[in-house]
Structure formats: structure tokens, C-alpha cells
């Protein structure tokens, strides 16, 4: 009886894992089949007005890239503060708040940015999209930096101080270098996450059918356009949405895997 119960339990557990893998496989196969079927070289050469995706891919990368440019230094420096400088309650509070911010509803962040960066300026603009994505990114970077720095042995810091280096030199030249790989991984995972975000962009950058580098106007976004295209009745639009989804997922998963490969390499 005990052994049978155990067998049943093991079977159920393996079955659960198969269900999880099954969903991953199902989604990836769907993307491959539908995405590759509508994939053409012309998608990368034309903009959305001409039935291509070039402007959207470039636009999404610019939005995510600029957000990373804002979010990574701010998040890292804030993470350094709570791990290296902060003492007591205040650093603890910031750590807790950023923990909560990581799981904050992204649509609410979009609405927040809309209220101060879209509504007062009379319309959607790329800057608002960048702000929304960087707000998403900062807490993730803070958490990663914080936990990666906590893995650096205290002796390294003491050795640096003993050599007469000032504290910020010790942090920048020794501690950060020691935690470099871990932080890089965290940064790549965070980038992959915000690059696939839709909700914070819906009413901040919106999207555009044309190629644009002007952040003062509505800005082309791959994810928002996927949402619009997928809801259109024509089959051609939906095929385009599948091709775009395939490209987006491939981008996100490759960045993700590269990030994971980095840390595994070190071990």
C-alpha cells in the first residue's frame, strides 16, 4: 500500500513535469509552424505600411535599449547603495519596496507614465515608452545587483581597504568585478523581460506603421503592433502577427539563454 501510494505520487509528479514541458513545446511548435510559414526576407526590409516588420523590430530594440541605458546604471548604483553603503532600516525599506515593484502590474506603470509624460504633452511619444520600460527594469536590476554583491566574500573588500583604496574604488574595481558575471546575467534577463513587454507601451509609446527615430512622436513597437494585428480580421494581418511573435520570442529566448550560459560557464 505504502509503496503503491509512492508509485502513484511519483507518477503524478512526473506527469506534472510533462504537462509543463508539453505547454512549452506546444507554444514553441505553434510559433515555429505559424511563424516560419509567414516568414520572408522582405519582412526585415519593409516597414509595417508595406507589410513588413522592419520599423517595429528596430523600434522595439530602441525602446528597450534606451530603457536599459537608463535602467541599468540607476538600478546598479541603487543596488550598490543598499548592499554596500546602506545600513539599517532605510536600505532594508528600499530593498523591500523594490522587491514589490518587481511584481507590480505593468499596466499600472503604463497608466502612471501616461499621466505625467503623455497626457500633458498631447499625445503618445517614444520618451514615455522608454520611461515606462525603465521603471519596469530598475527594480529587477536592483534585486540582481543586491543579491550578486552579497555573494562577494567580505575578505575581498577588506583586502582592498587594507591597500588604502577608498570605498568607492573598492566597490567599482574589486567588488563589481568579482560579481561581474552574475550581474551581466541578471542584466540580460532583465533586458529580455522588458523587451517583450506590451502593457506599459500600450498608451505611452503606442505604435507606428512608419519607420521613426523621433522619440517625440508615437513610436513603432513590435509588441503593441502584434496586439493590434492579432485582433484584426484579415488573415494576412494575423500571419504577420505570428511572424512578429516568432521573431520576438526568438529574440527574448536567445538573450535569456545567453545570460544563463554566462553563469554556467563560470561554474
Amino acid at each position, binding site marked *: 500500500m505504502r509503496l503503491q501510494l509512492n508509485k502513484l*505520487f511519483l507518477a503524478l509528479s512526473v506527469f506534472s513535469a510533462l504537462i509543463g514541458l508539453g505547454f512549452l513545446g506546444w507554444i514553441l511548435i505553434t510559433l515555429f509552424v505559424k511563424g516560419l510559414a509567414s516568414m520572408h526576407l522582405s519582412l526585415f526590409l519593409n516597414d509595417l505600411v508595406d507589410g513588413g516588420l522592419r520599423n517595429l523590430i528596430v523600434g522595439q530594440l530602441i525602446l528597450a535599449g534606451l530603457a536599459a541605458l537608463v535602467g541599468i546604471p540607476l538600478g546598479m548604483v541603487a543596488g550598490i547603495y543598499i548592499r554596500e553603503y546602506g545600513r539599517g532600516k532605510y536600505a532594508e525599506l528600499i530593498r523591500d519596496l523594490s522587491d514589490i515593484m518587481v*511584481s*507590480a502590474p505593468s499596466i*499600472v506603470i503604463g497608466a502612471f507614465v*501616461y499621466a505625467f509624460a503623455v497626457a500633458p504633452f498631447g499625445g503618445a511619444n517614444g520618451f514615455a515608452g522608454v520611461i515606462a520600460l525603465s521603471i519596469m527594469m530598475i527594480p529587477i536590476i536592483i534585486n540582481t545587483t543586491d543579491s550578486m554583491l552579497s555573494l562577494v566574500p567580505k575578505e575581498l573588500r577588506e583586502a582592498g581597504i587594507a591597500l588604502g583604496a577608498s570605498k568607492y574604488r573598492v566597490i567599482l574595481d574589486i567588488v563589481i568585478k568579482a560579481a561581474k558575471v552574475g550581474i551581466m546575467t541578471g542584466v540580460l534577463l532583465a533586458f529580455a523581460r522588458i523587451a517583450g513587454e506590451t502593457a506599459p507601451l500600450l498608451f505611452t509609446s503606442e505604435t507606428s506603421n512608419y519607420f521613426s527615430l523621433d522619440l517625440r512622436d508615437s513610436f513603432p513597437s513590435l509588441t503593441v503592433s502584434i496586439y493590434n494585428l492579432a485582433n484584426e480580421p484579415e488573415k494576412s494581418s494575423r500571419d504577420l502577427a505570428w511572424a512578429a*511573435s516568432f521573431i520576438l520570442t526568438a529574440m527574448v529566448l536567445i538573450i535569456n539563454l545567453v545570460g544563463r550560459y554566462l553563469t554556467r560557464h563560470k561554474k
Partner: protein
Amino acid sequence: MEKLFQKISFASATLVLILLLGIFTTLYISAKPAIDEFGLHFIVDKRWNQEVPLTQTDNTLTQTPTAVDENADDEIADEDDMILDEDDEEAADTKTVYGGLVPIVGTILSTLIALTFALPIAMGIAVFLAEIASKNVSKFVGIAIELLAAIPSIIFGMWGLYYFAPIISDTFGGYQVSLLTAGLVLGVMILPFMAAVTRDSMNTTPDVLKESAYALGATKFEVVKDVIFPYSKVGIIGSIILALGRALGETMAVAFLIGAVYSLPEKITDPTISIPVAMAVNFGEASGLGESALFYLGLILFVMSFAVISLAKFYFLKRVKS
């Protein structure tokens, strides 16, 4: 330099606090007109964007029969609305009422469906990863599950709408866009997150405890049930609540599937709407009081997920660390 760097790092850390307070105040200020107009009654009012004669809004607790009819039957409601609109413009003594009950109920119900669906499977996966699989298999499956978590939510939405929902509606009947399909796709989405955090909690169980149980002749099932589960119970509950907090605020996967209809679901297979979807769908064309009401919904969502996440992080998961 030292001082400067310290100041910069302090300022960046403070930015988090400022952002959080900024989100609260901005949402509150933008929601203020709706809060003043509808008060807390907003939460239990199921009318959204409906014209009501002025005299009846003073007595908002009693609902007009027309309002109920309109909620129950959409297509007829639309025609009614148009006729009402024309009449109202002539009469000019009506006003528009917004209530948040439908999206609030939709959010909670879709999250609960997701949780019911994901919980047993996530627990199974966590046990598989932590206890059953060999190191290499566990690593491989672990990465696969984390990749599932990395797929953008909009992809879940599209896949759900075109491939998952038809199967569900064939099996359970009803519409393809419904509370049920939205909840299940949401469940698939939170599954990997829940499994990963639960596995981490289970891994905190000291090997000595497990080994002594095995030495006494316990089966794997007994070790999981009597050693690992009691030991990591608090952490597991914390990860479940954390996953719930994430599900509450999920927009894109649900937007494709819930139907975006302002009516309370009578059956689980009826379409309805959730707070994030209401914001995603209606924000673009909203203005004035309608926009303010959406901000009010956003504020409610933010407070809800803030409370749930804090509960998970500070009550349950903190106790694990210490």
C-alpha cells in the same frame, strides 16, 4: 569622489521610494474626479459607462431596472444605449455612471481559476525538480520551465486565443473568449513561476532531515509529505501568494481571452472583463470622467497587488529567510 559616489548611489536608491509614492499619488490625483463622484460605492456598482437620470444617482444604492437589463444582454443593450443617448441629449438631465464591480470580480475570478489550475501542476513540477529527477534531468527541465516563464505574455494570449481556447470551449461548451479560457491561460502563464519559487523553497530543506527519514525506511512520498512539506510550508504558501499577485496584474494574456465585456459572468464560460484589460482596452478612447474611472480601477489594482505581494514577501517568505 567618494562623497559624490555615495550621494549618487543614495539618490538612485531613493528613486525607488519616489517612484512608488509617485505612482500612488499620480493614480490618486488622476482618479480623484471619479473618487469624488462615486466614492467607495464604485467598488460594488456594476454599471459601466451608463446614462442614468440625475435623480436616481443621488440614490445610487438602488439600481435602475434598465441598468440591470443592459448588463444582462449586450446586443440589445447597445441598441438601448443608443436610443437612450438620443433621449438623454434632449433631456440633458442625465449623467454617466461608472462602477468597478465587473472588472474587480473578473480580476479575482480569473486569478482564482488560474490558481486552481496551476497549483497542483506547479507542486508536481516542484517535487519532480527537487526530489525525483536526476541532477541532469532536473537541470534540463528546470531551464525549460524557466524559458516558459520568459515567453512574453502577449504570445500566451495569441496562442491561447487561436489554439488553446477552441479546445477548451469544445470541451466545456460556451464561448471561446470567456472567464474560463482566460483563467486557464493565465494559469499556464503563472505555472513556471510558481513551480520555480516552490522548488527553491523545497530546496531549503536540510539534507540531514531527508536522509534520516530515508534511513528510517520512508518512501519518497512520505519524505515529501512528512519532511519537506512541513519544513518548507511557509515558503510554499508564500510562493503561491506571490504567483497570485502576479496573476492579478497580468494584462496581455487575459486581454485576448476574457472577452472585454462589462457584464458579470453567470457561468464560468461567460465572457467578462478584468481591471488590467479594462485599462488596456478602454484607455485609448476614454476621456474626462471615464478616464478618471479607469485610473480609479488602476489604483484599486495597484493596492490589491501591493497588499498581496507584501503579504507573500514579508509575512511568508521573510520567515523562510530568517
